[in-house]
């Protein structure tokens, strides 16, 4: 047993987190900033943070992740990090020539009380920010929320810095992407293009974190939302935010700053959430939903009806982020699976409430927990109490999967030990088909491995 100390005796914990189902804010800020074209993320804190975030993002995307750090030492921690950040800005613009530096704070700089806005203003005063270049910032203390919060905060920071309203309304819709894969961002753009909806997608990590091998390292890959696009968001017809945790604050900021009305909808994972997404988009843009979209929906429905027997009643344990988990458990419930255990390290009371609502009728027995001590250790203990047929979550699930011999579908962040997630979307109807393909694949693999020889099946 890999996790040999995990037993089925659940003890209430108040202080100790074991095998977390979240990580800290700054990595989310870094990921969001990578979705801006020509932007270099900058970590204002100890250099270990930046190193850890770059490593984790790199292991997940198998791509270069460029970011700088203020490299605090003890002195900076005592006297404040202003000198470090000013130096950093100067060095970065000299050497790496970004359009934008996106600075996020850390637990360290937050604890000592560095005021990023003030330091950046000072940098501008001192002439350290070249003409036409930008330094934007977000406050992302690691001891509040989770990586998702950091993503949301950076998104808000971006919007705050750039979005401007002029008198002229632009016939376009803003789409604020939650924390999804480059492939998903590309899929969102494809769907909007099929629907004929001009849009600004923010952020957009496609062609950034799935960049081609060309023999040349493009320090700023060709993808990412551009500055003029972000500026223009202030003139858009409407903003749609995908996922409350990741996009709500940016959507509100945009409304307050530029009077662009917004709606929040779930990440389009599975059938019901994608239905809502498509309808919200159609409404926002005042367009009809084209046949091509209905046809994709029909393909997903087709797989659901064809394969229903394999999904029906299967017990699933999931961990990850609220914005992903909510539509995902809804999807599973829609196809008659039973998401019985759901944990997320990301806090927010709305999560348990919504999850319970989704499952109230179909899976009343579901155990749902989020926030501190809602961790993978707890989920594993629940599994030890009563097993499940399937695990869905990030790579760390593999320890449980092997110990308990449970089929395992990797979804979420980080996925460190498989590839494909950055290339093939799980959003939208076609993404739903991919999710079901994966689920069926692992369930059937287990059936094929475990069935007695006489009931080994050729056909499904």
């Amino acid at each position, binding site marked *: 047993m*890999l996790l*040999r*100390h995990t037993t089925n005796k659940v*003890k209430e*914990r*108040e*202080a*100790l*987190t*074991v095998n*977390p189902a*979240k*990580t*800290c804010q700054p990595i989310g800020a870094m990921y969001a900033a990578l979705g801006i074209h020509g932007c270099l993320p900058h970590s204002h*804190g*100890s*250099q*270990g*943070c930046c190193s*850890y975030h*770059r*490593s984790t993002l*790199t*292991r997940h995307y*198998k791509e*270069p992740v*460029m970011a*700088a*750090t*203020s*490299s*605090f030492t*003890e*002195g*900076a*921690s005592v006297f404040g990090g202003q000198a470090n950040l000013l*130096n*950093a*800005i*100067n*060095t970065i613009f*000299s*050497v*790496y020539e970004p359009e934008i530096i996106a600075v996020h704070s850390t*637990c*360290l700089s937050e*604890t000592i009380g560095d005021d990023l806005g003030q330091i950046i203003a000072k940098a501008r005063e001192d002439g350290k920010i070249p003409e036409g270049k930008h330094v934007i910032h977000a406050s992302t203390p*690691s*001891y*509040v929320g989770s990586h998702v919060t950091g993503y949301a905060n950076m998104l808000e920071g971006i919007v705050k810095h750039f979005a401007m309203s002029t008198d002229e309304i632009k016939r376009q819709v803003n789409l604020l992407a939650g924390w999804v894969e480059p492939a998903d961002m590309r899929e969102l753009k494809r769907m909007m293009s099929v629907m004929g909806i001009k849009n600004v997608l923010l952020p957009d990590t496609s062609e950034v974190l799935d*960049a081609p*091998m*060309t*023999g*040349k*390292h*493009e320090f700023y890959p060709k993808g990412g939302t551009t500055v003029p696009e972000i500026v223009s968001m202030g003139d858009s017809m409407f903003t749609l935010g995908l996922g409350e945790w990741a996009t709500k604050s940016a959507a509100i900021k945009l409304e307050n700053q530029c009077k662009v009305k917004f709606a929040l909808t779930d990440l389009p994972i599975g059938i019901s959430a994608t239905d809502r997404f498509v309808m919200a988009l159609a409404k926002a843009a005042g367009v009809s939903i084209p046949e091509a979209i209905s046809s994709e929906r029909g393909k997903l429905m087709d797989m659901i009806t064809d394969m229903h027997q394999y999904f029906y009643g299967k017990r699933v344990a999931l961990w990850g982020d609220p914005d992903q988990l909510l539509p995902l458990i809804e999807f599973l419930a829609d196809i008659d699976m039973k998401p019985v255990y759901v944990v997320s390290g990301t806090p927010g009371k709305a999560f348990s409430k919504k999850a319970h609502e989704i499952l109230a009728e179909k899976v009343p027995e579901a155990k749902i927990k989020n926030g501190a001590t809602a961790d993978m*250790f707890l989920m594993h203990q629940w599994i030890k109490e009563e097993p499940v047929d399937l695990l869905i979550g990030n790579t*760390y699930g593999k*320890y449980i999967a092997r110990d308990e011999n449970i089929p395992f579908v990797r979804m979420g962040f980080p996925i460190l030990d498989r590839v494909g997630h950055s290339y093939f979307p799980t959003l939208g109807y076609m993404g739903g088909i991919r999710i079901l393909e994966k689920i069926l694949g692992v369930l059937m693999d287990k059936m094929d491995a475990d069935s007695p020889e006489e009931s080994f099946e050729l056909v499904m």
Partner: protein
Amino acid sequence: MTDKKKNIKELPDSAAIIEEMVSKYPKKVAKKRAKAMVTNDPENKPEIQSNVRTVPGIITQRGCTYAGCKGVILGPTRDVINITHGPIGCGFYSWLTRRNQTKAGKGEENYIPYCFSTDMQDENIVFGGEAKLKQAIREAYEIFKPHSISIFSTCPVGLIGDDVHSVAREMKKELGITIFGFSCEGYRGVSQSAGHHIANNGVFTNVVGTEKPKRVGKFQINLMGEYNIGGDAFELERLFEEAGITLLSTFSGNSTIKSYAYAQSADLNLVMCHRSINYIAEMMEEKYGIPWVKINFIGAESTAKSLRKVAEFFDDAELTERVEKIVKREMSKVKKVSKEVRPDLEGKLAMLFVGGSRAHHYQDLFKELGITTISAGYEFAHRDDYEGREVIPNIKVDADTRNIEDIEVTRDDENFREDLVKKKQILEEKGYKFKEYSGMMSEMDKNSLVIDDISHWESEKLIEYFKPDVFCAGIKEKYAVQKMGVPLKQLHSYDYGGPYAGFEGAINFYRDMERMLNTRIWKMVDAPWKAEPEIVGSMNINI
């Protein structure tokens, strides 16, 4: 660009490329960075700036003190619950990411697959986190009943005034198990290196010698600075066992707190990674009289040399015979493979920028393959790791270093090994070298380029300039370098390969180099139509 084949015998002076690299920096930065770049002369080793603050914004390879203390040194020890006291990130990122393999026997403790954290929240920062830490320790004890718990401080801990050491003492008393803490906040020191030192101090103070010495075998050693990445330590354990040498404890790979506790029973300490572990070796010599030698098990020749050095120390005919037998047998296997692959690899060029000793050790493997190291440097080493221990007295101790406690060690009269002191004296007289390390530079070619704490910008320039055949670094560098068409070998994680230590490890490395440097996949990077004139059909569909 240099012509590889022509220049491998004699490298050109690197002044031009150094100039190119620093010229883009702001002046002050350029001045500072220039001191970290030197053209090597193994006979007359130049002074290199190292173990100094990283220039903010430079895009460094370096991590932090917490990473060095918790991630590197204590991480590989399986029978202790390592609680990260801080926000969740630090614990999360150091959770299973260093490939420290460990082999726990049935029923034995193994907490390595677990991540324990106090997951500090807003209110803990405002009102202090000691109470939560205590409660976390209690919960860990209730659930897991470990014999040892250690606590690692992250950045905010020191700032808000949490005293992890007093908490450790208090809880130790309350629970009656070993509990100790580390003040390894990320901002201390200038790199992971500070964390190593802090970890060394803590382990030495709180664990080493807490059990009675024991005699299990005739020849007892500790292996220090071997982290069992990819199973390196397993390969070495195999060799020691066959030789009849008793490996008491490894600091720290496939290791246990329990074995550290009687590590003072060793007759000799072998130091592998000089940078990260020399502190304990030094302190053990001071306290217990156990001598240490620098060895290196990366590279087949180095492994043979190191094994022989150990045998020489014990000066036992049977042991020597066993070691010679092993060396002979293993070297013949190694030679067979190197003979097979060397013709494909000879004359290729390597660069290594990583760690605090790996950038040096792996040059031995490259040498065995006929691959020239044209440029190398460390991520977090000190001048002695470049220039040799002889410069230690001359190293200026700056404020950042002064922050890391140099602990006062007093001789343990009861357990002091006078016999070993005598043995050392006799051997030294015969020319046997103890606590000697002559650094990376002495083994690098003249005119090779040595750079400390290399930045991303510098490494891209270097690659453009030298077009190396292989680049060794870490995960953050891997894909950027590869995007340039140059294969990168990770020397922290071995790219999930290995072991690379010892003889079998050398064979693995040879084969990996054969695979990486001899594949044609890099030649396919350019689309074939890039090489052709613009395609013109007989008709154009758009006209």
